[in-house]
């Protein structure tokens, strides 16, 4: 209650707000591409490496004190790019991408640790960007469980319907699946519609407690 009042007063004077913004989602939905886009737009450098091989991000990647300037206010964010959440990690799937058995097993081990780490971080984020791939069916258990957890914890969430530049993209399907949440369609890769996302971050974010 006090935090909200304080937040509102800060906002009145256009003061800086600082939030821990977690980028969550299943694997290969474009979380790091989105984090890189946000970081490039406002801090001039990338957060991490991207890859077509699942679980490229296996550790929480941070970019601290990224300042987003909106019309009437500035927001300071600590950007947290999370490992993809998954219910399975099979080293054999990495082998198909040309990794040696040893490297694939190492990647699988790190990936499972990364999932656990990402889940633990749910206790520490102020706002979440739940990234979904617009070309895929959004009704998968990862998305449902993630959103259910965020609702139960009362953590503000913005659904980012990513990859809208692709022909197969159906952001409308995401809107229909989760009508109770704000949804912004973007192409993190092409930088399409990012301004709308920044406005939404300003509108729905919760200040760090």
């Amino acid at each position, binding site marked *: 209650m006090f935090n909200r009042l304080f937040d509102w007063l800060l906002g009145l004077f256009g003061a800086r707000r600082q939030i821990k913004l977690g980028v969550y989602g299943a694997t290969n939905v474009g979380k790091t591409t989105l984090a890189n886009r946000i970081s490039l737009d406002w801090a001039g450098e990338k957060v991490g490496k991207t890859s077509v091989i699942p679980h490229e991000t296996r550790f929480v990647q941070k970019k601290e004190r990224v300042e987003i300037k909106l019309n009437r206010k500035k927001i300071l964010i600590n950007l947290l790019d999370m490992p993809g959440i998954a219910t399975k990690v099979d*080293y054999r799937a990495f082998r198909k991408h040309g990794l040696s058995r040893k490297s694939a097993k190492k990647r699988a081990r790190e990936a499972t640790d990364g999932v656990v780490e990402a889940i*633990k971080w749910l206790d520490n984020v102020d706002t979440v960007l739940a990234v979904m791939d617009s070309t895929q069916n959004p009704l998968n*258990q990862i998305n449902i469980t993630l959103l259910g957890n965020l609702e*139960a914890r009362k953590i503000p969430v913005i659904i980012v319907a990513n990859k809208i530049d692709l022909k197969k993209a159906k952001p409308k399907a995401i809107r229909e699946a989760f009508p109770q949440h704000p949804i912004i369609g973007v192409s993190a890769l092409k930088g399409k519609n990012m301004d709308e996302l920044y406005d939404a971050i300003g509108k729905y974010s919760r200040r760090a407690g």
Partner: protein
Amino acid sequence: MKKLKGLKIDFVSSSILDRKTKQKRINFILNKVKNGSILITDGVLNYAEEMDLIKETMRKVDNGFPGIEVCGLKKPTKGLNSMVERFTDQKEKIQNFFSALRGRKIEKTSLRNGLTLIGPAKVIREIKKNPNSFSVLTEV
């Protein structure tokens, strides 16, 4: 006698899972799934428990067990039922809080109305979900 190869499906009443604490329930599920069974129950875990199930699964992943596939269909709750569910949530939180105060680490939550399928990722190739149904493709 020749041992038959096939798919084992365990239908477990939610009352069995309801009697268990959170940790015991997750262990029960994972033991069944790790042994190759698909488990179907007439209830759904709450979202926090589902996240704990994913976390625990990741800790158990090895070369022979790549993880699980899970799908739940929660019965939509409206009006009075929704209020009862929220009341149950709060009641369980308070009970667990007092258990923790007394030094007991027992977390009890009851399953919500619905249907859940949990199976080994090695066996389940794909789950296609719609708002009110899902279909499962398995390898036998």
